[in-house]
């Protein structure tokens, strides 16, 4: 078809015009296609080929759902971890004996270590825990080997603040009762002893005497080993149960800005003679490591989702190319009815966009649902990131546009006479 330069605005005025009221020779108004009609025209191709349309939209939906769910779950998990970190703080350091050996003896912290550590400038709080060689039994008649793995720990009363622990039931030790035979149970220990309530002065047989249970703890996020312990006051532990005066574990709270500086001097301060026998850990590191690990997984799954999305896009391109081949006569008809090349290409592009938008919306909903179910199952707060939802639909549309571009161009290039030629 030869190209012709567009003539001036007023076209083909025939001679004798004006004598009649016909529209002959008047200015040709351009062909038009209303946006509402475009939507109808674009959707009719999909409506008359439902199965094919759904399957190709499904490809996009799976990719988007995977990405949204991965983003949602990782956001929820991160939010959950950050919440925990926020509450527990990142400035807790744990000092224990360990590392080098001297002969057969297990390394221990010097008795003075707690006092020494308290003197480090930025250290704000210090408390310690000492293991006590005793068993806890439900009654004095129970065999002494049925300890259920519950250990006994002697603590000072500040420990609750230092570890940001919470009582589930009853109370924590206080100064006035540190020397009395009272005990606070960790969450696991209470469960193993079958004690859910401290209301009626329930007692346990601890190290050969009766101790009254005054409290049951929620799990300690920062010191999980306390969960399976029975916790008693340091004074009574030393006096009645022969506990060592030297601390087993020292917990420090420092100025949040100087954690690293403090960490560097702890070993020498706690045990100047054998600094290599001091181990320092930072429990929040573990939580942060968990967050970092989940980030790595997020990137991996996002990549997989992107691959699925890409495959979905190829599927749409494929379906659209086939559609253009199959619908040659429709293209020819539309050109005969007055569609311009542009109308034809916009129709097919819109069809691809509609397909991918449907897939994208379905995928976003599916992904959000997966996130919600997963979060609920984990007992987390449900976090569905808006960025993920909007991004999912936007990604689907972008894929649809790219996938639809070539078929649409091809449809527009088809000469009407070729399109109308049959067989």
């Amino acid at each position: 078809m030869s190209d012709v330069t567009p003539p001036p605005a007023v076209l083909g005025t025939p001679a004798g015009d004006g004598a009649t009221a016909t529209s002959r020779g008047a200015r040709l108004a351009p062909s038009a296609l209303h946006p509402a009609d475009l939507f109808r025209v674009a959707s009719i191709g999909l409506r008359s080929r439902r199965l094919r349309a759904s399957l190709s939209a499904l490809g996009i939906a799976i990719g988007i759902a995977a990405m949204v769910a991965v983003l949602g779950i990782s956001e929820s998990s991160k939010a959950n971890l950050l919440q925990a970190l926020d509450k527990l703080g990142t400035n807790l350091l744990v000092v224990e004996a360990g590392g080098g050996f001297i002969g057969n003896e297990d390394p221990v912290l010097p008795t003075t270590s707690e006092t020494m550590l308290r003197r480090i400038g930025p250290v704000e709080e210090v408390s310690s825990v000492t293991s006590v060689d005793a068993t806890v039994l439900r009654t004095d008649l129970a065999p002494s080997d049925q300890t259920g793995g519950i250990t006994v720990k002697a603590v000072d009363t500040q420990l609750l603040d230092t570890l940001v622990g919470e009582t589930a039931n009853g109370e924590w030790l206080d100064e006035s009762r540190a020397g009395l035979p009272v005990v606070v149970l960790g969450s696991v220990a209470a469960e193993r002893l079958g004690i859910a309530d401290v209301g009626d002065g329930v007692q346990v047989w601890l190290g050969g005497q009766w101790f009254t249970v005054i409290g049951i703890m929620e799990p300690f996020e920062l010191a999980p080993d306390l969960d399976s312990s029975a916790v008693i006051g340091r004074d009574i532990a030393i006096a009645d149960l022969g506990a060592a005066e030297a601390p087993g574990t020292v917990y420090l709270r420092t100025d949040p800005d100087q954690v690293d500086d403090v960490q560097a001097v702890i070993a020498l301060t706690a045990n100047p003679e054998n600094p290599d026998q001091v181990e320092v850990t930072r429990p929040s590191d573990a939580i942060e490591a968990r967050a970092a690990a989940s980030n790595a997984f997020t990137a991996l799954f996002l990549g997989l989702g992107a691959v699925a999305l890409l495959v979905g896009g190829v599927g749409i391109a494929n379906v659209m190319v086939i559609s253009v081949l199959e619908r040659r006569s429709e293209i020819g008809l539309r050109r005969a009815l007055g569609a311009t090349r542009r109308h034809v290409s916009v129709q097919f592009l819109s069809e691809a966009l509609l397909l991918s938008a449907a897939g994208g919306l379905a995928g976003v909903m599916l992904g959000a649902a997966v996130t919600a179910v997963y979060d609920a199952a984990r007992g987390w707060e449900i976090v569905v990131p808006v960025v993920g939802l909007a991004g999912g639909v936007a990604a689907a549309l972008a894929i649809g546009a790219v996938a639809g571009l070539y078929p649409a161009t091809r449809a527009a290039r088809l000469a009407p006479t070729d399109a109308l030629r049959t067989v």
Partner: protein
Amino acid sequence: MGVTASAPAPEDVVIMLRDVVKEYPGDPPTRVLHGVDLVVRQGELLAIVGPSGSGKSTLLHIMGTLDRPTSGEVHIAGYDVARLADRQLSSLRSREIGFVFQQFFLLPGMSAADNVADGLLYTGRRLRDRRARAREALVRVGLGHRLDYNTEKLSGGERQRVAIARALVGEPSVVLADEPTGNLDSRSGDALVELLHELNDDGSTIVVITHDHDIAGSLRRQVAMRDGLIEADSTREARDLRDSGGALRDAAR
């Protein structure tokens, strides 16, 4: 009716072709039309008849502005096609030309009324207006009782009537029908030709392209084509006269 038209075209001329040549590229190029002159006036019902390869389909495409001639002049509804850009030709088709095809080309999954309304899709008219006109057009072709039928449930004859309604709905200057009875049995075909006569009586200008001499012979004017040229251009009255005079020329080969 003169074969050559004198410029400028009179007011009632709908189609004017002057020395139209069409070549398809190749080595050597294939010349399909060898300088065709044709004038179609408002209110005519004519057949362009010829065997396959005579160039009648190419002529239809050029009259329908779906293709441009290699040389020569084409005026449709007063517009000089050579002076219009492709975009403007689309507009011309949407307003001034109605097409009817042998294969109907109805869109599946849509009602008869919606198919007809799509005849106005690219004119910029509103949907409500298009639907109202579509109903009127379907009533005109005798399908007032099939408005909301899915076209897949209609018979061949009914489908072609829907296609004719679609061609007519925009009240074009001319309707071009390409072998409109080609996919119909003879009874539906006869009924369709009768419908074309009725529509022509109501004022529609209709050009039927066919290889069927019976149909061509029943129309008021017959343009016979052979090898890319117009071989004969006669009215039914003249043919009847000739036949009755016994000087039968084999116009219906």
